[in-house]
């Protein structure tokens, strides 16, 4: 049971986030902003290591728990930190997503089933070697294809939830300089930056 022992609103926000994480069935990652940031960083590192999309799904779930709260304008630090966390993950998505994914592209084209070798070939070591390479190449392409499918799904989900974060916490005026600068100076793709700025300006939710 988490108890609030501080009147510091920042602590309350993070603690609420952690409760949200716990309610989502994930392990609480601590009660401080530092722990929360560390956990997100660890998930990102894990993703860089194994390229498993589940790490991005975890981060999206954690950040989604922040959506409930309209963070007081005075807590600019909290808002900025969360904004950076979102951007950090969106950059990773931008770096890994292939918006031109096409299942018929030779880099992705795979078959659900590689037929076994013919009887006459099955005794040939060279044919066996080629067959094994073919199966492995097919498996890699299938994994690559599935990765794109899953990261596209995460991209859709994260973008949508992030738009809610922006709407709830930032006005549509040019006075949100910190927000605009953070977005512009980030490593996000140019297209993504424009999408986010359009959301902030209430031109679009998508």
């Amino acid at each position, binding site marked *: 049971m988490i108890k609030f022992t501080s009147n510091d609103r920042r602590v309350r926000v993070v603690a609420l986030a952690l409760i*949200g994480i716990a*309610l989502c069935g994930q392990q609480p990652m601590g009660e401080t902003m530092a722990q929360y940031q560390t956990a997100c960083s660890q998930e990102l590192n894990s993703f860089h290591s194994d390229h498993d999309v589940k790490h991005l799904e975890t981060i*999206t*779930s954690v950040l*989604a*728990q922040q*959506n*409930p*709260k*309209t963070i007081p304008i005075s807590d600019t630090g909290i808002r900025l930190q969360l904004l950076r966390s979102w951007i950090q993950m969106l950059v990773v998505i931008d770096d890994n997503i292939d918006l031109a994914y096409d*299942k018929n592209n030779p880099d*992705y*084209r*795979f*078959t*659900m*089933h*590689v*037929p*076994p*070798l*013919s*009887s*006459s070939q099955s005794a040939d070591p060279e044919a066996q070697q080629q067959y094994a390479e*073919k199966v492995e190449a*097919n*498996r890699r392409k*299938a994994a690559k*294809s*599935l990765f794109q*499918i*899953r990261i*596209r*799904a995460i991209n*859709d*989900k994260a973008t*949508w*939830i992030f*738009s*809610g*974060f922006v*709407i*709830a916490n930032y006005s549509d005026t040019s006075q949100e300089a910190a927000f605009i600068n953070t977005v512009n100076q980030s490593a996000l793709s140019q297209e993504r930056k424009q999408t986010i700025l359009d959301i902030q300006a209430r031109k679009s*939710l998508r």
Partner: protein
Amino acid sequence: MRASVLVGCHNEGDRLWRTVESILGTIGKLDAEVVVSDDGSTDGSIAELRRHFPHVVVVSQNERVGVAAARCLAAGRARGDVLVFLDGHTRPEEEALERLVVSVEKTKGEALVTPRIVSLDETTWRSQTQQSSHGYALNLETFDSWWLPLKKMKEVKEGGGTFYESPGLVGCAVAVSRQMYDRLWGFDQHMRQWGNEDLDFALKAWTMGARVLHDPEATVAHRFQRKFADYEVSPEYPLANKIRAARKHFTESVWEDWLARAQERNRRKLKNHPEGLWASAWGIFKEDQKSAEQERRHLLSHRLHDEFWYAKRFDLAWPSLGGTQLLAQPAISKKLFGARVSATMAPPFTIVHETAAVQPSDRSRTTIGVGEPVNLNLSNMANAEWSVSGNAQLSSSTGTTCVMEAGDQETDITLTATVGADSVSVIFTVVAPTLVSMVAPSSYIHCIDRPDSGFCATVYVAPGTVNFRGMLVFEEQAYAIGTGVYAPLNGESHQALNPVGFTGDINGGLGSEVSGSDTIYSGDPGTDPPFEPGILSLSIPWDFTVPWVGANHAFATVGSYCQLQSDGVTLVAYKAGASVSLQVSSATMNPTADC
């Protein structure tokens, strides 16, 4: 012809011919016919009726459908200007039939007229007049109904007669002009078995500008029973009929409110319904929802009064335009609708829901695939509390935006958004995959003068009305059966990748496109010519899984074969509806089987 007396029946035994005898005994000089409509009786009562009264017209449904359908069948056969519906266990008192017909005529056919109902002793076939029942009340929230005494009914004078307004009616005895019956589309023949078809008819009358008037001077005796002794009435049917009536009559927000409450009230599991009574009733409703939607469009576009008007006229607490009443189930209401629980005042926002998948093009659809994500926000962009009942998950419980992902069960999901005291809900129907189908290009896989055959296929999972991009599919392990030339391949395992996803594209009626193609290929069994005709066949179970849930569900078994036909030269390869045909002598094509 002035009138038709229409008798509906199902397994009434001797009561049926005695009812007809009573009708003929009281019909007097009334220019009328008697039509008996049999709802699939199996007890010999129709034969007995014919023995007693061979001249009486009998129309039959071969199997039991329902009391409403039987009445519609009789009405279709009737020739009278006024239709008098009676149950097959009633005894009209002296002059009652003519009185009912005259009463309808006094209202110029603009009202349905009901008689005083007394109890019938089926042994003596005598009326027990010490207790009389008059009007019939209806609670729109529950579709509960009960008798109304005369003193609680509004008296009206019309055409020289004295009547009393009744909110509902009991279908055992009611008279209506042919013209009005047709205008109301009659009883709802799609209401199954028994229950609430009469209340539906009354509600139609009132909202379409007619009335239900009670004439206490006409008396019909009716055999009441504490339980159904001669035929079964399964509890899911009356509930399904309630759902149908609610859907037809209520505007969207009232319907959603009603639905959530009704679902909560009927969660209980019964001996014969371990899945819950609601699930069974909802399934029955869904089977024929199309016809309900058709009548709903007619009613809502032609009616003179809505359900709010009806509630106000008959002093019902629900629904109410001005109110926030939630009288029957406060606990439920609080849970489902927050502090303000009224379907009657439109909240200042609506839920904007859009499927994440861009295909099918209708992204605001409420029928979604298992695992399918839906983006949510409110029309006023407010920060909302989100909740969901059913097999689904939400990205967060509050927020300006939210993502709902369907689970892996075919079920309905009720999504609710609450802002302050206002709540709105949307119901989604989740469908699972049903079928795998494949499309083959014109090319094939083959080596000249060998018995191998095959092709590459694009794979789809139906139905195409939803998008399955939120789930994965895979083939389970299977082993080939080989005969003839393919005997050497007997027992070969079919090793497939798992799992694979979807491209997000939909192909018309075929469904969601799988991200990988499939290779159907016999391989070369290595046999020397001449080749003996034979077949290499596989039966492959297909499973789906929704990643965030994790369980695997078998949903289809896909047949596949490669065959050398009896002529010894024709090769056919087939899988999931796709096939190629070629000759042993056909030119070599794609011999490495690379799709």
